[in-house]
């Protein structure tokens, strides 16, 4: 699949924003940052909403006819993209109500409740985003239960490291946040490794079932067009194996190895580690960017079978 930069930026940036907002809302109830002040919640929350908004705006850039984008709220019952759009818009009044309540009343039951509701809705939005891809039977690398799990996990990893950076800036004591971040990073690495193993197994339709000639070998003689088509550009995008391999390694270094080293540093040293924590957050963001690029670059649409691929 052609990796469209606007879509990669959208899922990574909006995801980071949702991840940050989810953990921010749970900072008090789960004791992630027990000493966090209402002002800090409001400022961090606004930062999260800026990330979400930047991502959502970028998502409209890949539309060929954006003047009809408003119609995407109309097919909630069947389309995951429509569900994502509806929930993403519904998230704004709820999260703003949470941040305004937090700012006006501080640490109250109401602000806590609105925060938890916002966190739940953020998970729902991002699962809908992931399901746009995971619901497609035409791309076996996407049609997996691991896809929504990974989308949410990776968003939480970046969100957790951003929240740690906020804590370091404000010199807040880390409650359970360090431990939660550690668990999230390890889970993300394990699930992504499982994903890589799963997509490595041959599965799905072949050129034989595509054309329903199942008794003999089938080979493309001529594809019927001399230049490129919408399909060769959108689905025929191929990346050299070596680059995919190095991208996988880069992902594990940026998202897992470096943040784990920084977490080790945070757990062992008492001195200020602001620089390192910010570096880990930036590194994890870049790691998810590489992961999302890989998500597209490794996806093989079944239409490639008609263009001569023996399997996907």
């Amino acid at each position, binding site marked *: *699949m052609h990796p469209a930069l606007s879509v990669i930026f959208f899922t990574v940036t909006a995801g980071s924003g949702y991840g940050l907002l989810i953990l921010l809302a749970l900072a008090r109830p789960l004791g992630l940052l027990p000493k966090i002040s209402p002002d800090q919640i409001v400022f961090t929350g606004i930062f999260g909403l800026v990330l979400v908004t930047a991502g959502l705006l970028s998502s409209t850039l*890949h*539309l*060929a*006819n*954006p*003047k*009809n*984008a408003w*119609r*995407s709220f*109309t*097919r909630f019952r*069947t*389309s*995951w*993209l*429509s569900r994502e*759009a509806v929930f993403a818009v519904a998230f704004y009044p709820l999260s703003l109500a949470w941040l305004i309540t937090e700012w006006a009343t501080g640490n109250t039951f109401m602000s806590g409740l609105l925060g938890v509701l916002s966190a739940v809705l953020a998970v729902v939005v991002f699962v809908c985003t992931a399901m*746009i891809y995971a*619901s*497609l*039977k*035409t*791309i076996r690398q996407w049609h997996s239960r691991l896809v929504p799990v990974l989308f949410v996990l990776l968003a939480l990893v970046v969100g957790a490291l951003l929240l740690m950076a906020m804590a370091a800036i404000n010199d807040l004591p880390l409650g359970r946040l360090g431990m939660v971040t550690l668990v999230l990073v390890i889970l993300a690495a394990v699930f992504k490794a499982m994903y890589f193993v799963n997509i490595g197994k041959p599965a799905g*339709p072949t050129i034989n*079932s*595509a*054309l*329903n*000639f199942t008794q*003999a*070998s*089938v*080979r*493309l*003689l*001529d*594809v*019927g*067009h*001399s*230049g*490129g*088509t*919408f*399909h060769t550009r*959108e*689905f025929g995008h191929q990346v050299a194996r070596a680059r995919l391999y190095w991208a996988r390694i880069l992902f594990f270094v940026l998202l897992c190895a470096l943040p784990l080293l920084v977490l080790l540093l945070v757990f062992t040293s008492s001195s200020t580690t602001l620089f390192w924590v910010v570096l880990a957050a930036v590194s994890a963001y870049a790691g998810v960017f590489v992961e999302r690029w890989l998500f597209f670059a490794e996806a093989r*649409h*079944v*239409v490639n*079978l*008609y*263009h001569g691929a023996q399997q996907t």
Partner: protein
Amino acid sequence: MKLGLVIDLDTCVGCHACAVACKQWNASGTTGPLSDTDPYGAEPSGVWFNRIRNYEVDTHPDSKTVNVPMSCMHCEEAACVTVCPTGASWKREDGIVLVDQSKCMGCNLCAWACPYGARELDEESGVMKKCTLCVDRIDDQSLPESQRQPACVLTCPTSARLFGDFDDPDSEVSRAVAERGGVAQMPELGYAPVNRYLPPRDKPQVEVSDDTRAEAQSTGGAAGLIGKWMKRQRDAFDRLGSRDGGDA
């Protein structure tokens, strides 16, 4: 009603006349334009509702060339309609899957959901386009009844394309599928495509000498085969003029 096409892979000669007729009718009809980019240049590209590809089934010397025209299958479980967030993609009562261009936002999701490559984004108008089974012909009461058929079906010089109602067991398409064992493409994805392909008929086996068979097995690859073929042509050329076809 379940309208669709039957395509006879036995008689299709791969001439692309159906694709050209389709482009001509639909570019000037209600779905137009079907934009082309760089049409006379080095990298011509454009929107087509119907594309024909050629495949070799089995291996030399038992191989057969099969020409496979493909357009929208008008699936009963049309995933392109389900995923569409704007309601631009829809399915008519008679089964035809259509795009309402005034509602499409060009997100490409329906093209991602389609396994058959039936949908192509028109980059000039920014909306998705696809085969309509020529609704603007089959619905047009002012046309004589024999003309109320898709352009591809009317134009096919070998009558390899049939159009009709698969729900009617006595229709031409239903009878052809029953008689010839028509099959669907990639049925395992579960979209229940309506169009059917009639497999090539069994032909009498062509005598192939043991030498040819051994040669084919020893060379394996296509490049090797071409090399052997060229050598045979050279040898035959060298023998030209000698009456017995022996040494010149």
